[in-house]
């Protein structure tokens, strides 16, 4: 084969392989485009079928159709994958051949250049090289220096920052009590029309030292309580002063609770108002006043409404609180900055936010005190609600730095007692239980379900039975505490003997708290199954699989159980050992909070609006 033949052959092969490569590449490009454009897992047809299945859950034919569709999508996808892989190897092969024949072609075609005079630019080139080396060398040095001056050695500032990081502890120890002197404070005036913003309050700071608490042993620090502003149980039962009503047990004593309404259509909607700022906290009621809170990254507010006509009476702003972070902590959208429900003792209303700010207003919106408990180290956002008993504001403060529970004086905000808990972070809320004439605070978290003396904070008992990220609060009735958490278990504990009466792990709630009342236990799972158990035996009595997610908690009222799902549909069941659905009413907007009840009325907080349901 002479050079001419070599040239011709290599050229022809190069052309053929070039066309081959281009064709394969084009097909791959089309395949790539097809894969990126059509996402098989978000097929509209599949979504439509799944949606249809939600409405018709027992349609086996539809299920089979979905399976076939899914299989088809998978086959198509993996076929594309195979094509991409095979095409890649074909292209690689073609590219290798192309590179090779091109080399042969150019080798055969190359000519010897005419010899040139050398050394013409050798010296000049060296001189330029010297300049280049100096410039590049200097540039490297300067860039390195610049980078070094722009870099901050954060490690050096660790000690100082560590103090800030431990703020959660120090802030607890150094209690800042804000006494609002009348002449120094701009008070939110009660207004029928416009809420008045709170302005700066002068702060008298009192430091209260506390001893270091060992994480191993629950330690309680008790200070003399201020004059009691306690309420009677009868008073509580007339109102709805905390998350899930009196004692936070989810048992309401009011009567004539509506069972039919249509939020969107306005049927049996007494009033509906838009809440200025978003929050997942539930409404609470005292007398004619209804309270909710809202927050965003700029402000945190408490709203007081006239529950009869929905008028905003006042707005209290939680600002100028010493120790409060300048930027709120990062929280997830489904928790937010105002997840904990407020509480009231009839004289003041108390709120806590994800920033760790606790604030008290009197019933007319006058700011009484405020303090920051230390920014809770909570990756979703703090959500444990407040509860008040016998002049004390009870705060469950389980964070990533450990668990603790504390009682603040309702009037001053000072710490009355504080107990370290052998627990991890939790999102559950405290529940009050009367046991043998004394009140206990029932808390659940990973790994313990425990009872605390409301007066002293002493841990009275604990049972190690819980795990995971605990969100549901306990249910309590008939001397039995029922605690549960998704991916863990549900346990019924005898509060006097701490004996585990029964346990189950089939239907478990994720966020919805447990309702225990009069021999029955109700649990709502996050995937939309509402289940009734026998309280004493743990026997599953009935279940209703409606399929909508539920974060709200079931509430007993007027002989029925009310359960709101996240889509804003409230299902009403007869309080019975058999499944009897009384009604199903739509709010017209999403809803996560638990409703509040009053005689003849239900107050529901939706995604944006506050509804008063009744006649």
């Amino acid at each position, binding site marked *: 084969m002479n050079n001419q033949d070599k040239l011709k052959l290599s050229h022809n092969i190069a052309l053929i392989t070039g066309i081959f490569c281009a064709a394969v590449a084009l097909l791959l490009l089309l395949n790539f485009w097809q894969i990126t454009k059509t996402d098989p897992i978000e097929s509209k047809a599949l979504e439509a079928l799944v949606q249809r299945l939600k409405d018709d859950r027992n349609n086996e034919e539809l299920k089979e159709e979905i399976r076939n569709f899914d299989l088809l999508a998978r086959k198509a996808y993996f076929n594309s994958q195979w094509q991409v892989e095979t095409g890649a190897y074909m292209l690689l092969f073609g590219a290798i051949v192309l590179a090779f024949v091109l080399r042969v072609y150019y080798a055969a075609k190359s*000519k010897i250049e005419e010899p040139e005079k050398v050394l013409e630019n050798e*010296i000049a080139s060296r001189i330029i090289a010297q300049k280049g080396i100096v410039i590049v060398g200097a540039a490297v040095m300067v860039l390195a220096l610049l*980078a070094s001056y722009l870099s901050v050695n954060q490690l050096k500032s660790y000690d100082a920052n560590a103090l800030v990081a431990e703020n959660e502890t120090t802030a607890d120890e150094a209690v800042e009590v804000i006494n609002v002197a009348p002449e120094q404070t701009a008070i939110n005036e009660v207004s029928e029309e416009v809420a008045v913003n709170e302005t700066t309050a002068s702060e008298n700071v009192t430091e209260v030292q506390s001893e270091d608490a060992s994480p191993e042993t629950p330690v309680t620090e008790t200070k003399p309580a201020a004059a009691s502003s306690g309420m009677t149980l009868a008073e509580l039962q007339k109102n709805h002063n905390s998350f899930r009503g009196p004692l936070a047990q989810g048992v309401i004593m009011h009567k004539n609770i509506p069972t039919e309404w249509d939020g969107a259509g306005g049927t049996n909607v007494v009033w509906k108002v838009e809440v200025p700022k978003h929050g997942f906290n539930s409404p609470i009621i005292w007398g004619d006043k209804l309270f909710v809170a809202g927050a965003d990254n700029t402000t945190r507010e408490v709203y007081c409404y006239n529950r009869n006509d929905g008028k905003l009476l006042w707005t209290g702003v939680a600002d100028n609180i010493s120790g409060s972070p300048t930027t709120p902590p990062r929280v997830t959208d489904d928790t937010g900055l105002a997840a904990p429900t407020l509480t009231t003792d009839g004289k003041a209303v108390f709120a806590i936010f994800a920033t760790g700010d606790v604030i008290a207003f009197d019933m007319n919106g006058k700011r009484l005190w405020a303090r920051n408990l230390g920014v809770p180290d909570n990756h979703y956002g703090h959500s444990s609600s407040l509860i008040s008993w016998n002049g004390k504001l009870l705060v469950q403060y389980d964070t990533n730095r450990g668990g603790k529970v504390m009682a603040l004086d309702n009037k001053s905000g000072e710490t009355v007692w504080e107990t370290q808990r052998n627990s991890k972070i939790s999102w559950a809320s405290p529940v009050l239980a009367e046991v043998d004439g004394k009140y206990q605070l029932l808390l659940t978290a990973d790994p313990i379900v425990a009872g605390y003396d409301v007066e002293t904070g002493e841990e009275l008992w604990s049972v190690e039975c819980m795990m995971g990220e605990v969100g549901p609060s306990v249910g309590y009735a008939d001397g039995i505490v029922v605690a549960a958490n998704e991916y863990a278990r549900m346990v019924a504990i005898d509060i006097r003997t701490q004996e585990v009466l029964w346990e189950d792990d089939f239907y478990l709630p994720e966020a919805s708290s447990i309702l225990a009342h009069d021999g029955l236990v109700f649990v709502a799972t996050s995937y939309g199954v509402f289940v009734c158990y026998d309280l004493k035996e743990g026997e599953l009595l009935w279940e209703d699989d409606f399929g909508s997610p539920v974060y709200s908690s079931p509430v007993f009222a007027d002989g029925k159980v009310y359960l709101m799902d996240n889509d804003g549909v409230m299902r009403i069941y007869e309080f019975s050992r058999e499944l009897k659905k009384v009604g199903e009413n739509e709010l017209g907007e999403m809803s996560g909070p638990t409703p509040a009840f009053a005689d003849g009325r239900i107050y529901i907080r939706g995604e944006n609006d506050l509804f008063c349901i009744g006649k």
Partner: protein
Amino acid sequence: MRNQLNQNKNQNCFGLRIPDIRHKLKYLLFTFAFFLFTFNLSAQKQRFPKPEFDTGYTQPTPVTPEPRALAMEYFDVLVLLLVLAAATYFALKSRSRQGILWLSVFTLVYFGFYRNGCICSIGAIQNVTLTFFDPAYAISLTALLFFVIPLVVTLFFGRTFCAGACPLGAIQDLVVVKPISLPKWLNKTLGLIPYLYLSLAVLFAATGTDFIICRYDPFVGIFRMDAKFLMIVLGIAFLLMGMFVARPYCRFLCPYGVLLSWMSRFSSRHLTITPSKCIQCKLCTHSCPFDAIDFPTNEKEVVKSGLGPKRFITYALVIPLWIALGVFVGAKSHTFLSKANQDVYLAELLIAHPELRNDPDNIDVQTFLASGKPMEQLVSEATAIREKFYIGSMIAGGFMGLVIGMTLLNTVVFRKRQDYEPHKGNCFSCARCVDYCPVEK
């Protein structure tokens, strides 16, 4: 011979008389093919989630692949030895460019596509470094041999490793189509980069921070047919550039090339352009795509230039200043450089942004929190690593100062040369030039 080669200059191809357009079309085709190659590789990264319903399919348990058998590792060493011996034979004894070319193809297939670019002598620098600085790390004999053997061979025979035994060199060498000659000043200036890369690679390996040579190997993604999109793009970009600027990675980045270059300068039996006496025909002057042929010294020009002993002494005296400057800059840069370390990065992140502890999407932070390691321990470890960086950065800076000073000094050193000779340090022993020499043995 020249006539025979020149007669093809205006060759008709398929009746077309527009050779320039034809060439351009080929380049475009080649470029297009490589870019498309990039797309399909990235497409393979997608995954399909498991079905939400029970299919009866049993999900296989993930299995960690077994490491390569020891015998096979030694086989790799044997292959390396054989390839090096063959490359040396082809470069020095048979003077066969064709032999080296086919050897490159074999190396590319075996060490590149079959062995997926690992183990490689270039990356072994880091293993060797870590062995010295981390008592808990024991280098494998294979890695050590892959590091040492090419250096020893180079010490005697020049960079025949680069010619035919390095898969990174091979893939670049095979795409050299239309190389252009770079000016000497650019070659010299860009030649500083491998030293910088080497010093950083050693610094990061010594501090247990990262194996940056492996992480930023532009060709390993192509060898494995599976890499991050940007790395594939980088590899393709190097290959495209390599069609015109021959072996860009070898010349202006390869840290192992620095060591090989040092060794090669002392090689007693290096490749020569001419098998016997140079007849000064100058046919080889443009034969090297890597600008690695030194021309005869024109003493008159040198004397006239003023780049004589005076400047040599000046530059020699300035070297300690360059070193001092490098040490100073290194000391200052240690904070910045140490941020590349994962522990330092995490500690600083948590100190500067404690709120990130609440960020469930920050996998680094959440993994640390889940580990249960106290913050104090993390900060303490990070501080210790930063201390290592302080010393290491000063050494690396001093080394770079020395390199700059020596490179500068080298520009005023003229070695007396009467023939056209390969530059022992820069020559890859690819034997292209020998085909241009009309002198018979």
